[in-house]
């Protein structure tokens, strides 16, 4: 672990972290500010929602959960927060080491007197720190929004804590998956199409598997591993799926180290 690399990585990402964190906080706040109006007219809402077919509601995660409850409404918002978190973590993962090659600084970096393991350690830790800042901002904005808008309604704190605690595993999943994909392809030209495809693709798959019918899409998409509706309803994680998710993360991280240590770094002439 090299403090210089860590600090440099952290600093270059700081702006992006601030923008993502603020956008997430604002999004949660704005979405939740609708809650008082939304829940006080439950009848009108049920009427409005019934305009949509159940399959469509299920696709948006509005099927089983009572949207007029504090956490029911929050779990609906949380899905969208997850989309943003996935794209952010995917961005950092895809860019973690590939950015050196696109910006032609890779040979400069590996010629420094630090091992590749150390480079990877510092970079991963810096990315994880950045993601944790965003994570904390989401926690804070969640509690602030809920307390401002919940009025006299009560909610189950345990379920909410469980839901928020899932963020860190979720972020690590996309970080390590992005990292390993970026090391498997020959060259990452631009990070965003990759992370957008990974984040949005998995979200759409999850939305799709809400429709009934035969499919095991739950297994592939991380959004189903941490389905907010499930966590709120059962006050527990879907343990096998979460374990699967964590296992994928660990395998990806190990593979990323192995791949990076052996990677052929192109020299810039």
């Amino acid at each position, binding site marked *: 672990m090299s403090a210089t690399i860590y600090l440099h990585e952290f600093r270059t990402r700081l702006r*992006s972290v601030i*923008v993502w964190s603020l*956008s997430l906080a604002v*999004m949660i706040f*704005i*979405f939740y500010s*609708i809650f008082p*109006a*939304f829940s006080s007219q439950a009848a009108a809402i049920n009427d*409005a929602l*019934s*305009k*949509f*077919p159940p*399959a*469509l509601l299920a*696709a*948006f995660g509005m099927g089983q959960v009572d949207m007029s409850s504090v956490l029911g409404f929050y779990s609906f918002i949380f899905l*969208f927060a997850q*989309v*943003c978190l996935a*794209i952010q973590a995917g961005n950092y993962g895809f860019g973690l080491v590939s950015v050196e090659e*696109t910006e032609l600084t890779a040979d400069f970096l590996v010629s420094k007197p630090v091992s590749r393991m150390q480079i990877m350690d510092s970079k991963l830790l810096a990315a994880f720190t950045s993601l944790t800042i965003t994570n904390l901002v989401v926690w804070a904005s969640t509690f602030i929004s809920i307390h401002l808008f919940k009025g006299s309604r009560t909610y189950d704190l345990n379920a909410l804590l469980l839901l928020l605690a899932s963020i860190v595993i979720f972020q690590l999943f996309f970080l390590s998956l992005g990292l390993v994909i970026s090391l498997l392809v020959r060259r990452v*030209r*631009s*990070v*965003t*199409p990759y992370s*957008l*495809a990974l984040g*949005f*693709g998995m979200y*759409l798959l999850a939305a*799709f598997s809400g*429709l*009934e*019918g*035969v*499919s095991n*899409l739950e297994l592939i998409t991380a959004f189903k591993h941490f389905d907010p509706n499930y966590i709120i309803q059962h006050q527990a994680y879907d343990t096998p799926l979460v374990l699967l998710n964590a296992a994928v993360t660990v395998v990806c991280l190990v593979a990323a180290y192995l791949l990076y240590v052996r990677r052929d770094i192109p020299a810039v002439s």
Partner: protein
Amino acid sequence: MNIFLRELKANLKSLIIWCVVIGLFILVGVAKFSAYYNNPEMLSILNSLPASVVDAMSLRAFNLTTLNGFYGIMFIYFALLGGIAATMWGSDIISKEERDKTVEFSLVLPVTRTRVLTAKALAALVNCIVLMLVSAVVSIGVAQRYNPDQSFYNFLVLEMGAMMIIELIFLAVGLLLGSSMKQYKRASSLGIAIILVTYFLSIITVLKQNLDFLKYFTPFKYFDSAQLFKDGRIEPGYLLLSLGIIVVCIFLAYRTYERRDLYI
């Protein structure tokens, strides 16, 4: 012409990936649809409702027991995938020159910047059209199993038209981002921001009635598949609005690209 062909070739891989993705999406969707098709339970619920209620709740458009209803629900996915692809193509086709450090080379060629931009925009446009055609062809292909009638084809044509317009809007926005952002990295970051914000807006408008005016800010709401199904045409007001956005964005893209200071 050379630039146009070169760009088509450079974007071919991305185009193929998007076509495969959208094709797979339709196939997975149809696999799910087969569970609903002529499902007696759902049919009996629908039949028990009075006709006026069915119309008011646009259940006919979203009636999952029919092919048309299924495609009514698929529309938002077409729109989203098309929108994302078009934004990425639009901004990337311009900003990649600076990212790959080839921009000095391409701008010293004996062609004006206007022609460069036109060739690039046309190449991206061809990609969008191909993506739309692939979704149409795959849709028609998988629909054959369910003996589609004329109304299905009419509806599909409408949906694909609406998808094309959404693609064009996002393509124009992407081109504008690519040519107006000083740093190439900002173009794609802002692209993500625009997609996420417009998508979230399209959901928020449903939640609260007095936020209805927000639907003018999100192209995903311009073409509601229930409305398309009921009216059998694209609403002219939104068509004009879309056209306005496209023209303004393209105009600004040309203007800024002509005066662009290169980021090297």
